[in-house]
């Protein structure tokens, strides 16, 4: 059996008397690129927020390798799961290096001193995200794509087993989207981390993921490899949009084409 980085068991969650999740169940296999997809309001971000323990405890349980999520110390949790938020902007003039160095917090002691190993890891993370040349620049001066890569570098510096990303590319142009998803794919292939990513672009999902979890109205409607989940019938039913699926030769993923009009 494949190892898992987390298992969700019977997760039930109501917000303002509205039942959002009813006995949700899934697991996240280790070493995979896992995409969570579904229409707006289907509960993708809420699911991520439960994994990050930002929301009050739901019923049911989220089991991580060292026990229940809610028994984890905050720093231990940070060493297991890191997070790249949807679209955060920094209002303070931290340098790129300082921002990535924050990722070392859960590994550090009481004093705000970075060890030589911390420094090496920060530089490696920056290099992995092709940002070493802007280490001394202010984070507020980065372009959208660079900023997003900096957040991923911070997650890398955190040395967590899992990186959670909430729509990391939805506000970027197609070049930056592909670049960031390729870098994330590389992290999975090099066994650096398991990636769990909320995505909207179904073609990107099909091109990069090992496992797709499709949600609708707080329930998981399908999970499995992209080709199995992303069928014409299911997409049309879940998204209420007609699509064509164009097969391509060889190992290339098919192209999913929504009917715009």
């Amino acid at each position: 059996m494949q190892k898992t980085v987390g298992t969700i068991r019977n997760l039930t969650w109501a917000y303002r008397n509205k039942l959002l999740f009813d006995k949700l169940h899934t697991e996240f296999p280790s070493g995979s690129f896992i995409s969570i997809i579904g229409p707006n309001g289907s509960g993708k971000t809420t699911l991520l927020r439960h994994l990050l323990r930002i929301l009050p405890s739901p019923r049911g349980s989220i089991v991580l390798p060292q026990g229940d999520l809610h028994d984890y110390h905050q720093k231990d949790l940070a060493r297991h799961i890191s997070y790249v938020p949807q679209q955060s902007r920094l209002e303070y003039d931290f340098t790129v290096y300082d921002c990535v160095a924050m990722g070392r917090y859960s590994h550090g002691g009481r004093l705000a001193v970075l060890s030589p190993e911390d420094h090496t890891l920060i530089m490696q993370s920056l290099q992995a995200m092709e940002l070493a040349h802007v280490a001394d620049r202010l984070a507020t001066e980065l372009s959208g794509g660079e900023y997003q890569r900096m957040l991923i570098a911070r997650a890398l510096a955190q040395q967590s087993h899992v990186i959670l990303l909430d729509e990391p590319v939805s506000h970027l142009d197609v070049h930056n989207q592909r670049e960031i998803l390729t870098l994330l794919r590389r992290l999975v292939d090099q066994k650096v981390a398991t990636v769990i990513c909320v995505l909207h672009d179904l073609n990107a999902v099909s091109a990069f993921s090992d496992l797709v979890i499709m949600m609708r109205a707080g329930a998981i409607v399908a999970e499995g490899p992209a080709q199995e989940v992303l069928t014409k019938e299911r997409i049309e039913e879940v998204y209420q949009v007609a699509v064509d699926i164009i097969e391509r030769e060889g190992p290339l993923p098919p192209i999913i084409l929504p009917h715009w009009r």
Partner: protein
Amino acid sequence: MVKKHYLPVIGAALVILLVAITLSALTLGPAGISIRQTVAIVGAGPSNDISTTFNQAQHRIIWQLRLPRILSAMVAGVVLAVSGMVYQALFRNPMADPYVLGISSGAAFGVAFAAFLGLVGGATGMWQVPTVAFLGAAGTALVIMVLSGGVRRSPTTLLLTGIALNFLLSALMTLFMYLNRTQLQSIMQWTLGSFGTASWSKLGIMGATATLGIVPIMFLTRELDILLLDEASALSIGVSVKSVRLLLLVLSTLATSVTVAFCGIIGFVGLMVPHIMRLITGPRHKTLMLFSIVGGALMMVGADTLARTVLGASELPVGIVTALAGAPLFIVLLANHRKENR
């Protein structure tokens, strides 16, 4: 932000400036003591008052009046500057400071209320005043947290909450003054801020609580940096946001309230110092805190010396001096903030 390798030089320059200002503050005044005498008196120690260079009266002025006063100003400056820095990070709001948020008023209100009820003053011990001040300040901090919805609401909501609380608390204090005219002078003193009643025993209590409040914050500078991010990011990096914020709030409120208990409300130091220092150091709290400590001491000793000497024989409340310098900066910040949010 200044290049990293210049920081030690600027830091050293600020420390030298602080020493120079302290020496001139000790020397300046109607008693006509020269700087050489001042150095000799300080060097002679607190009990050795017989010398050829100075007389007993001069020794008394320096050791019993000016030194405790200047050291009190330093402690108050450090406390208010560091508290301002902490509140700015806690509420992720560059305009937060103990005065603006109403926390200083809360402390003064606590003292005024207890004085009105006859619980403090006279024969009661030294610790009553700081205790009621802390209760008043902590109560106000709590109200701000609840009314402004923690940090989730906009920065403006927080400021308006602080301003509303300031209105309410100062109205209540005016009411106490009106109802109890015998206490008028002493309540007045808390609302304007002064180091005129400083003494070694008060300084001891102030210094002890300042140490208790400020030293632990030195070990929380990484957390302060991370608290500037959104809450989800801070949590995912490993900071227990709720407990760290509560701890920081208690520490800074403790230090602030005791300062207010003995020196009254001195506005805008907590706003100005971290702001000016952030221009030099950048936002990292490890350096910002050290610079704010020196800067706070520097600004308060300077402001108090100005308050004490500018009118000749009579004395200005130091709160007026800091408000005259700080309020315009606050308006500039507010204008810039509005521009950015447009």
